């Protein structure tokens, strides 16, 4: 089935069934993977910097729209040769994840689960199932250009979806309505991080007519809350067992958790290294790590990616060398601009600005998973869930958010604070005044931009760049 909709007065945009997955799986990611295998990293680095860089760095055109975003996510031609080594496992993670889409499309042998993006995929690894994270389409969908992203959003809105919802949820629903993912057998999600996500999944269940389990997130941050949530996780396992006819493989779950521990060690080291002046870690790396964690948490490839990034960054740290040749501005940045991923390499190149302290997603702050027993593993995974990016910040009282914010300001020597506002994030905007007051008290210049991190229809890339330029220049930072 092809969905045709009048997007603009003169053109009819057409998004074929499974177009995104097929293009990513068979063309883009495989092509990049092949290039990594066949060409040495130095050559890749040179090609990216001198051949692709001008082509992808400027604004999106009809000539570069199918690769621009994807290549910007891969570093935008600013990586050094050694760091391109990390891209090989990255491609493996994406290919592994896309197989969960492609295999059920070709020949459905295993149950397919739609998994909310704040539920650990480790559990899915302990079953013989396919899983798709619908919200991941906000990342992967953008890799095919803004036409595709906007189309998915507009289809959802034309179906009666709420315009005010989080655009990640809208992308997910848009992907479903434009038939970019096969129908599920089950839905497993959570009541975190926000009510936008909570309201989206029942809608999805209503149209798919499959059983759904929703993890109930406690507000608190204490042992009782963790135990309550661990109980929820056990109930989720029973739900999956009942509806798939399978039994959880505790050994596989344990192995996944052990991998997760290794990955988190490297990612937390990377996050902490951004405290150094100059920072040896690029914010792009942390953001890519977040996206890869979303798709491949518990995968050995993820550990490999994190290890390579860590080792390279550690070498730079030991040499006293930064990611940038000259780090002029240290920016504390909140919220990752998914649709505007070009902003990261742009501020690095244009202003010598380094994002430190991680953004909302890239800052890794994940507890250690105790794999000594099933009980301890469940309790630890409850902590992992409740301390994941966004979840730890917005599920409870404002202190959960503000404590981390003040800690970041205190530890990462930022020169300024930039909040890339996100239309659907009531929490982010709700904290606006408190954030401003904190910045004012500390004397940190702050920029609050009204935009939507996944929806380029709200604010254009050029407008965001202009606001950032004015902010840097107006405060004498650039």
């Amino acid at each position, binding site marked *: 089935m092809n969905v045709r909709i009048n997007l603009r007065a003169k053109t009819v945009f057409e998004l074929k069934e499974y177009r995104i997955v097929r293009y990513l799986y068979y063309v883009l990611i495989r092509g990049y993977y092949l290039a990594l295998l066949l060409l040495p990293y130095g050559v890749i680095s040179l090609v990216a910097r001198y051949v692709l860089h001008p082509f992808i760095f400027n604004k999106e055109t009809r000539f570069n729209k199918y690769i621009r975003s994807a290549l910007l996510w891969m570093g935008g031609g600013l990586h050094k040769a050694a760091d391109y080594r990390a891209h090989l496992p990255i491609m493996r993670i994406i290919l592994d994840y896309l197989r969960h889409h492609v295999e059920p499309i070709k020949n459905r042998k295993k149950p397919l689960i739609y998994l909310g993006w704040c539920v650990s995929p480790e559990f899915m690894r302990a079953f013989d199932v396919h899983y798709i994270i619908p919200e991941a389409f906000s990342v992967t969908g953008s890799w095919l250009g803004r036409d595709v992203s906007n189309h998915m959003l507009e289809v959802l809105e034309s179906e009666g979806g709420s315009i005010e919802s989080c655009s990640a949820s809208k992308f997910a629903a848009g992907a479903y309505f434009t038939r970019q993912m096969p129908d599920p057998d089950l839905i497993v999600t959570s009541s975190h991080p926000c009510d936008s996500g909570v309201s989206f999944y029942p809608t999805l269940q209503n149209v798919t007519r499959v059983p759904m389990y929703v993890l109930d997130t406690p507000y608190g941050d204490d042992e009782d809350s963790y135990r309550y949530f661990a109980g929820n996780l056990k109930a989720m396992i029973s739900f999956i067992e009942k509806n798939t006819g399978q039994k959880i493989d505790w050994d596989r779950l344990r192995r996944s958790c052990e991998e997760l521990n290794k990955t988190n060690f490297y990612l937390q080291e990377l996050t902490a290294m951004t405290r150094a002046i100059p920072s040896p870690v690029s914010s792009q790396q942390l953001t890519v790590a977040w996206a890869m964690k979303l798709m491949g948490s518990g995968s050995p490839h993820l550990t490999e990616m994190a290890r390579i990034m860590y080792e390279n960054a550690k070498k730079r740290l030991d040499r006293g060398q930064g990611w940038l040749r000259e780090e002029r501005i240290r920016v504390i940045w909140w919220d990752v601009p998914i649709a505007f991923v070009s902003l990261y390499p742009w501020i690095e190149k244009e202003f010598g600005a380094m994002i430190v302290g991680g953004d909302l997603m890239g800052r890794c702050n994940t*507890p250690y998973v105790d794999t000594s027993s099933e009980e301890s593993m469940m309790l630890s995974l409850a902590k992992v869930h409740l301390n994941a990016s966004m979840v730890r910040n917005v599920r409870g009282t404002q202190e959960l958010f503000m404590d981390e914010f003040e800690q970041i300001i205190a530890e990462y020597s930022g020169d300024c604070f930039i909040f890339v506002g996100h239309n659907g994030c009531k929490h982010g905007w709700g904290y606006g005044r408190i954030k401003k007051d904190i910045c004012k008290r500390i*004397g940190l210049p702050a920029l609050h931009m009204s935009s939507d991190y996944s929806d380029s229809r709200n604010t254009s890339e050029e407008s965001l760049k202009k606001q950032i330029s004015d902010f840097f*220049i107006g405060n004498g930072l650039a």
Partner: protein
Amino acid sequence: MIASGFDIGTRFVKVCIVEGRNVLGYSIEETGKDMRRIIKAAYKRALERSGVKKRAVERRMATGYGSELVRKADAVVPEAPCLARAVHALNPEIRLAVDVGGLFINVTGVGARGFVDGTLTNDKCAAGSGKFLEMVSETLSVPFDSISDMALRSNSPYAINSQCAVFAESEIISQVNGGRSGEDILAGVLKSIVLRAATLVERSDASGMVALCGGISKIPAFRVLFERTIKSDAYIPPLDPQIIAAYGAALLAEGRAAVRNKGSVGAACPGHARVMESR
């Protein structure tokens, strides 16, 4: 680094050349029909006074109402950050900068590190500005330089009822024809401008030292009335108060160097993070 700041106001073009925080030279030119030529002339004069060759100026920053007219500006910035940067460089204790110019009154809060901490401006109306004062002095045939002395001699300043400069001018003509003295009228006009500025100061809710800048602040009577109204001493910059925004623009043009120099490599990193067992 040698940098220049342009403040293209509604009445005057100000250009300031700085090196570090030191002013090398500046110029003030009245606006006119051919603005680009005036800007060019003002820049040339500032360069001559500072003894600097044009090519030695590394960066140029423009601010003010006509800032877009500066063709070779590296960037255009609003007035508020320029004022904040300038007054902070002159006196870090200042928490509010009041700039009374040809058409606007800008009140800018200044944070402890010299960043903007809120701004307020008057309505786009000549009634609370230098242009109004000029109109009145022309109506009364009083030279601009004599305004202050005359206003200070007034015993009962006339309270102007009209909010609009055009109506106020008619009202003043009526008062002149009715025998009201020029001293009282000028004192009344100054008072109306002071009250507008003081209202903005009050609205800003700032606590700390207030700096008074802009062309009008060069009038001693205005300063006296302003200090009397806000019940506090105002800081008068040691530079010409009219060039403060241009000075700030020049400091901003210097960029990072003006804020602080980055310190040691890796100093802030304590070593390695540890995997946290729990929050």
